[in-house]
């Protein structure tokens, strides 16, 4: 592996199956690059993202977590993204209070046609998270692997 000088943040991206995951596929087939440390977890709908998953990601060493769903009004299940948005707003403000800066968490609506937006969002998010450095605030020391 090449020796990396610049810090590369670990990012977990929860994408709903119907819009954002398809948007990520379109970014792929359009060959639009974004950092390799952004890794996607497919969920049926943004409303499937339990706040516990986000806490778990930060405990396990993620530096940023993003939830992507269909645009308001377009959720495959009509209302899921409204729940996701409300839950995220609460959790993110609590995380900010705990010292996980608000720049490390984000909700973004990406449609199946927005490959460009998906890649741009991931690039921008990764840049913001990178500027905040490693997230140590709620990392669980017991979860630390030897290299981190």
């Amino acid at each position: 592996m090449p020796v990396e000088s610049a810090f590369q943040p670990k990012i977990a991206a929860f994408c709903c199956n119907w819009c954002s995951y398809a948007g990520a596929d379109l970014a792929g087939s359009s060959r639009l690059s974004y950092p390799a440390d952004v890794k996607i977890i497919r969920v049926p709908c943004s409303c499937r993202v339990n706040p516990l998953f986000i806490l778990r990601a930060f405990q396990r060493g993620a530096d940023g977590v993003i939830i992507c769903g269909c645009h308001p009004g377009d959720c495959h299940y009509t209302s899921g993204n409204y729940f996701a948005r409300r839950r995220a707003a609460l959790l993110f403000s609590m995380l900010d209070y705990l010292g996980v800066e608000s720049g490390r968490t984000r909700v973004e609506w990406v449609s199946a046609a927005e490959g460009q937006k998906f890649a741009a969002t991931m690039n921008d998010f990764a840049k913001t998270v990178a500027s905040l450095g490693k997230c140590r605030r709620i990392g669980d020391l017991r979860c630390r692997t030897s290299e981190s």
Partner: protein
Amino acid sequence: MTKIGVFVCWCGSNIAATVDVDAVSEAIKAAPGVVFATNYQYMCSEGGQAAIRSAVAEHGLTGVVVCSCSPRMHEATFRKAAAGAGVNPYMVEIANIREQCSWIHKDKAEATAKAIALARAAVAKLNLDRPLTAPETPVTKRALVIGGGIAGIQTALDVADAGYEVDVVEKSPTIGGKMAMLDKTFPTLDCAACILTPKMVDAAAHEKITLYTYSEVEKVSGFVGNFTVDIKKRARSVSVDRCTGCGVCSEKCPSKRAKSEFDQGLRERSAIYIPFAQAIPNVPVIDRDTCLKFQTGKCGLCEKVCPSHAVDYSQEDEVITKQYGAIVAATGFKPIGLERFDEYAYSRSPDVVTSLEFERLCNAAGPTKGHLVRPSDGKEPKTVVFVQCVGSREASGIGAMKGKPYCSKICCMYTAKHAMLLREKYPDSEAYVFYIDVRTPGKNFDEFYRRAAEEYGVHYIKGMVGKVCDEGNGRLTVRASDLIENRQLLIDADMVVLAAAVEPDPSARALATLLTASMDTNDFFTEAHPKLRPVESPTAGVFLSGMCQGPKDIPDTVAQAGAAAAKVIGLLSKDRLVGNPCVASCDETLCNGCSACERVCPYGAISYETKTVVDRGAKDERRVASVNEALCQGCGACTVTCPSGAMDLRGFTGRQIMAEVDAICR
């Protein structure tokens, strides 16, 4: 423990050029549960699928991970391949190493490392997968259409023509809806009855269609393919089998004080009545509220005069229960009440009428036999002011809303029609139309409006009517502003016609609750997807036809009715429905019956049961959530809402997603 085989696809060079596939299949062998790993040029090809089959046979695999293109491409392919090899199709996970990896990264080492991480996440998830069986249910090959307006009639005819039985439940004594009340129809000015009544007759005569008029849906249970519905047939007090529709009873009935609903209250009708001459069925009903026999016990004249002995005062409401595979809501609309629009003097002057009343006044079968006259004194009007957007397009935010925020869509066109009809009947009359905008998108619609303005000399004035005063001498003064000339106008009018906004039928809200179909803030039924699934409700097996989904004219209503029929036919043509096994399930030992999950489920899939729950050896009576797997669509909203961690989603369990999180954050 799951015995996992991992298959890394090269996708020709699409993956292999950027990802070191050998390194991936080598590295993944170390992941827990993996007993076999290989790579192959094209996993989706017959050769690739054969590789899965032989590896299953050789290594006794119980789970398969394919590292390939997006699951949106080939998940179904690999599930089928696995099933063919004897592995449960839901024990298959895909690591998307093409769209999410080889196609977007250039550095081979970086891409290979990411591919390994994605493969690990898939393996971690698969380790917690459990075999699932897609539920299969039979389909009852009969449809129910609720509402017998043009929308319901068209849907019923289309479904019945495809060979399926259809029942139509209509709450009023006849089918036909609002279209039966109209005189001429835009944009062609052909007569509404001429094009509607043949369809009504077809529906009544169709061997596959059963009409339940004067009936209502009382109860709905079940789910897509298997609904059970209670229909209340209200007592007509007249035997449908015996009555010949001669009409002697209505003629002789001494109680003629009720306002005719069909004629918009412009004339009185008898207590025993047929709404209009072409009504279907052509059988009267007794309105028990105004019938002297029912109110005072004295009278009984109709029974005596009926030559076919069809009148039967002892009839009672009857409830029948039937099974359906699909349900179509076609409950239509009504014009809004104008109590809150007193500035137009609607309640004070009989010569201020709604557009629907105007239709009846023009209609040859209407209360004036088509002689368009003022309701107050029967004189022909010389000056008529038409007011558009009464209660439509009301800007929100300024105090309590009197009207509706939306555009009623049909008023611009029917007002142009009314103004033309007036000018045609009385060439020396003046027609003024006040409008906010004239909106005429639609085939031949703008041409129609321009004809009204240019050929028929209708005065179109952009502006608002502030007040209508009844001067008492048979004159109405209309105060209005002309926004283009920027001046106030005072018009001496004989009649004022108000284009009242439309709203959903008031019974729609209760019906939506019975159907667990959702509605928007204006009580229009919502569609499953605003663009891509416009005639389906979010509740599987419930479809939408006509105005009940949003304002529409007849061409749009008929088009949507046909589309809804196509969806119904598609559903009924299946013998069995294969469901999605990735649905929510409740751990009864954890559930505290709080109802939080029920409130967030968009499909009404969750209900509560009191059950004996065995929790840590002790038996307990508890109220617990239970998921109807045929209704659940697997969104997961309930799983996150549940404060007890009792709800989980099969195929996307909390533990599985956590395992993925762990794997990618490693």
